[in-house]
């Protein structure tokens, strides 16, 4: 396979201005398919979640899934789109074994949602508005596995195997308008845009939004034009870029490849490109041609969808707070710095911290426990922090034990380990492990006497006013009590004993 020439990203940016466009497919998590009552479930045995509609048998009648329409309207609203008063389905005709009907039921000139936008916040806080052209309803295709040939790629494959379980799964395809002006931030914006769409559909609860399962799939369009020219260059469409990192890399790579093509004086070919994660590059698919003549026409088996304004407003009223607004609100309420808040978000514990605060902890206490203790333990256990088994109540209880002086911070982490080991509630573990801070002054005074006797010179210094020397005596007491003493109380008692003002 020949390797395409590329320019460095910096050189490409000096010479050219990138224009982007995205088509993001979102699989809805309805119980059943778009047009049939077969289950919409990932990972089942091949060809078991199908019925006659999904297999494209002659004479069958598709019926629209109402929940899928509602989910589509919610997505449209969350993308600040207008919702069509009336819209239709259309047949997109093509022959390929992933679609047994020989057409995909989609929407063509009447998408259910159109003319929206999404404000994308980049890492440094810059906000970039991406205009949404449309979001339309359609159905997913079956899954092909290419057998023989090289490493599962179609080139050289002997035959393909088809599983129609995915056939008919409801999809919403979100199409942007051309995105201009991103400049060298184009790859970062690409990643942030897809991340934002994924977050929105997850937050709406309309999709499982797992990219590794193909719940959210991105086709990335890239073209370059010389700086200052208004007319767009010729674009390539990189298909199925299925992780956030890959979206960023694919856009970056295509910019570099286009720049090299344009520099050589050749035109860019308008074509489909395939992204390869292993080589972090794209290869040519097929050129756009007559094969793209899909002969769309209105689907005669499905009647129009009319979204009354009442229905739309009912759905709008159910929308959760948009993720970006929620983050902004929580950051302000908690008083975290930009860096602290970003770390919390990246560690995936924002929801957990919110719940912990709701359970009664302060924002700082919640952050201290989740970021300081739980995230690290979750990493070791290779689970999400929220799935480690620490409830907000545990943290509130632990913190109260510390604040009441019953245990110190070091003991608290041991109690946390006890909770994770299933030994019971924090209070029970303190009891069972005998971790309580020694608060009875009797044993403490004995230990203090012993420590003072062992270090008479230090005792003398303290008496003489050198209070900072007290650390050595406190250390001796803590050692004698195996860390179970309240260091603050020990200090008080020593000063009292020596008759020195703290």
């Amino acid at each position, binding site marked *: 396979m020949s390797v395409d020439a590329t320019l460095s990203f910096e050189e490409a940016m000096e010479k050219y201005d990138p224009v982007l466009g995205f088509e993001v497919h979102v699989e809805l998590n309805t119980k059943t398919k778009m047009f049939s009552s077969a289950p919409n479930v990932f990972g089942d045995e091949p060809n078991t979640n199908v019925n006659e509609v999904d*297999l494209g048998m002659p004479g069958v009648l598709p019926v629209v899934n109402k929940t899928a329409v509602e989910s589509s309207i919610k997505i449209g609203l969350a993308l600040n789109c207008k919702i069509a008063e009336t819209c239709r389905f259309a047949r997109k005709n093509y022959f390929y074994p992933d679609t047994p009907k020989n057409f995909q039921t989609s929407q063509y000139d009447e998408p259910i949602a159109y003319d929206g936008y999404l404000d994308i916040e980049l890492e440094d806080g810059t906000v970039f508005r991406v205009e949404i052209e449309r979001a339309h309803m359609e159905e997913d295709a079956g899954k092909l596995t290419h057998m023989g040939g090289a490493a599962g790629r179609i080139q050289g494959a002997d035959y393909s*195997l088809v599983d129609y379980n995915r056939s008919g799964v409801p999809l919403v395809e979100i199409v942007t308008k051309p995105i201009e002006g991103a400049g060298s931030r184009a790859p970062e914006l690409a990643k942030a845009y897809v991340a934002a769409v994924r977050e929105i559909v997850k937050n709406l609860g309309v999709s499982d939004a797992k990219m590794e399962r193909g719940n959210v799939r991105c086709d990335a369009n890239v073209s370059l034009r010389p700086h200052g020219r208004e007319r767009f260059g010729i674009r390539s469409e990189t298909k199925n870029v299925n992780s956030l990192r890959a979206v960023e890399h694919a856009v970056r790579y295509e910019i570099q490849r286009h720049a090299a093509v344009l520099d050589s004086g050749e035109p860019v070919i308008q074509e489909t490109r395939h992204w390869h994660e292993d080589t972090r590059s794209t290869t040519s698919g097929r050129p756009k041609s007559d094969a793209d003549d899909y002969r769309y026409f209105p689907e005669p088996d499905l009647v129009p969808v009319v979204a009354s304004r009442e229905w739309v407003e009912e759905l709008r009223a159910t929308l959760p707070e948009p993720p970006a607004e929620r983050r902004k609100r929580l950051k302000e309420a908690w008083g975290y710095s930009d860096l602290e808040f970003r770390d919390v978000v990246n560690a995936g514990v924002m929801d957990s911290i919110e719940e912990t605060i709701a359970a009664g902890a302060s924002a700082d206490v919640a952050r201290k426990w989740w970021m300081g203790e739980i995230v690290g333990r979750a990493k070791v256990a290779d689970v999400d922090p929220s799935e480690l088994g620490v409830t907000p109540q545990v943290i509130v209880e632990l913190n109260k034990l510390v604040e009441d002086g019953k245990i110190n911070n070091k003991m608290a982490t041991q109690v946390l380990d006890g909770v994770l080991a299933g030994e019971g509630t924090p209070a029970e573990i303190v009891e069972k492990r005998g971790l309580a801070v020694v608060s009875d002054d009797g044993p403490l005074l004995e230990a203090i006497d012993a420590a003072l006797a062992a270090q008479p010179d230090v005792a003398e210094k303290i008496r003489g006013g050198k209070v900072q020397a007290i650390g050595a005596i406190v250390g001796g007491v803590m050692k004698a009590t195996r860390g179970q003493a309240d260091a603050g109380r020990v200090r008080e008692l020593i000063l009292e004993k020596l008759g020195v003002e703290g």
Partner: protein
Amino acid sequence: MAAINRDDVAHLARLAHIEMSAEELDRMAVELAVIVDSVKSVSEAAGEDVPATSHPIPLTNVFREDVVGHTFTAEQALSGAPDAFENRFKVPAILDED
């Protein structure tokens, strides 16, 4: 005369995966032109105040509740397949990755 010629017919035949001989193309070009002309007379009857329609009956919002219904077993699904392997349909490899 309708705007459909022999090249259009050849193009459509290719898109529809229908193999047609030279004679068939010639004949179909004439016949399809007549059909298209006939359909056109309908457009003439409808004035500009008549909106285009895709469905003869004024029905909208025929929906199904999102409740799981019947499915086939893999064996049933594959019962009409010319070829199968490991509960999946076996088809010739076609160079196209969409």
